[in-house]
């Protein structure tokens, strides 16, 4: 296989028989979710994390879109890596990412128009998401397609996981709902009435959360920064390796 021989020549690693999905591959997939998370550790892609996390549905769609784009652009660039002229490599990466993002946008517009409207410019802005470009430059340009695929999926998952955690907190405390706008929309906190059933009825004096009103701060972009900050804190308190010694 041409891929393996060039890999061996450039990195001088002796290729042994390895399982298709071994320890290394699992590490590629799980590292970005925890100890090398693109948002909380590398602090990339913050902009979209503020913008699309007010509700679960857009956050979920955005996560899926980023996983798709980062995985498939990683594979494409990895396949082309020995043919891409070095002088124009960034432009080539950008064209690949832009093409894939446009495909995502076209498909989403046809498949779910309301969500496409809600995400508006943010799908297009995946092109400028540092996570995608960063992985292409740092990983796909120097690794074979299979590993690039896992790295792309892993980073997309790491990004998506943070997005969903933040969106969960913001939608629950900001609006008292979860997954609003989907068939499984859940109303968690709020006054009970005949048309909508809430899980925690704050209009009931016996309720544990009696008198709770939705937190307006949670729907503002600033709340996402606070939550991400707290996530970073919690993660570093738990995983001491991530703490800067400097």
């Amino acid at each position, binding site marked *: 296989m041409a891929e393996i021989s060039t890999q061996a020549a450039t990195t001088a690693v002796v290729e042994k028989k390895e399982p298709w999905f071994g320890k290394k591959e699992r590490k590629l997939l799980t590292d970005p979710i925890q100890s090398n998370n693109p948002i909380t550790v590398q602090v990339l892609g913050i902009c979209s994390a503020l913008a699309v996390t*007010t*509700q679960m549905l857009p956050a979920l769609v955005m996560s899926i879109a980023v996983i798709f784009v980062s995985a498939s652009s990683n594979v494409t660039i990895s396949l082309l890596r020995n*043919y*891409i*002229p*070095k*002088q*124009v490599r960034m*432009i*080539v990466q950008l*064209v*690949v990412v*832009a*093409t894939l993002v*446009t*495909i995502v946008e*076209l*498909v989403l*517009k*046809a*498949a*779910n*128009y*309301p969500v496409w*409207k809600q995400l*508006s410019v943010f799908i297009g802005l995946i092109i400028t998401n540092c996570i995608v470009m960063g992985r292409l430059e740092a990983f796909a340009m120097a690794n074979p397609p299979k590993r690039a695929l896992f790295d792309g999926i892993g980073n997309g998952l790491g990004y998506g996981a943070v997005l969903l955690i933040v969106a969960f907190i913001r939608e629950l405390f*900001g*609006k008292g709902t979860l997954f609003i706008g989907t068939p499984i929309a859940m109303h968690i906190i709020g006054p009970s009435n005949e048309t909508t059933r809430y899980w925690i009825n704050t209009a009931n004096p016996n309720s544990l959360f009696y008198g709770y009103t*939705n937190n*307006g701060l*949670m*729907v*503002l972009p600033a709340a996402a920064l606070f939550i991400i900050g707290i996530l970073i804190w919690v993660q570093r308190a738990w995983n001491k390796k991530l703490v800067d010694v400097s």
Partner: protein
Amino acid sequence: MDSTSYILRFVLTMTTLAAVLLAGMLYLTEPAAMRAEEVFNKRAILTAVEKQLPKPLSQMSNQEVLSLFEKQVEQHVINMKGEKVSGMKAEKINLAQEKKKPEAERLLPLFVYKDAQGKPYYILSVRGNGLWDEIWGSIALEPDMNTIAGVSFDHKAETPGLGAEIKDNPAFPAQFIAKKIYNDAGQLVAVNVRKGGIVDASHDVDAISGATITSNGVTEMLQRGLRYYEPYLKKIQAENKQTGLK
């Protein structure tokens, strides 16, 4: 270093492939996207008369929405003098484009929904500015051209939980039902979105707390938007008087 001719050949090949791929994707997805957009817009218009519909919009399939629109909604285009312009369909009018024309040359869409008994509801389209970007809405009037039968609003980029409540919170548009747009002296006053409680029960609705600018934007949009329709409203009111309809 690669030669200039290699770079040129590589870039040309790659961009051509990307262009062909995107053109193909657009060709495949466009029919579905246009249909989705049509359904989305028609749902938004029908939301203004949701109370009068045979069943709630959320329980209607896309096919049902399209056939209901086909059967029970008349489309007219009127000019700024209140005359009907023949040979045009209201759904083809884009208010965002009309705003760029001089005021006297603008065209206005008018949808007339007839319920099962043949009672007409006149649905007017208005467009204005919220805090971050444009807001727009549909206002359904009773045949007396004075009482509001229902409204629906939408926005491009208002803050979720604050300005976006004009669309997300069903209680906000519900306030407009049965309000009058003319005062007792016969002047067009539209509806005021008032901060701090209702003063005039037939012309005021309660504003959204924390979203003063969006609320004021709605007031301004209604006053200006309805004024554009006034020549036509007057005409129908005069006709109503002749035929003895109150």
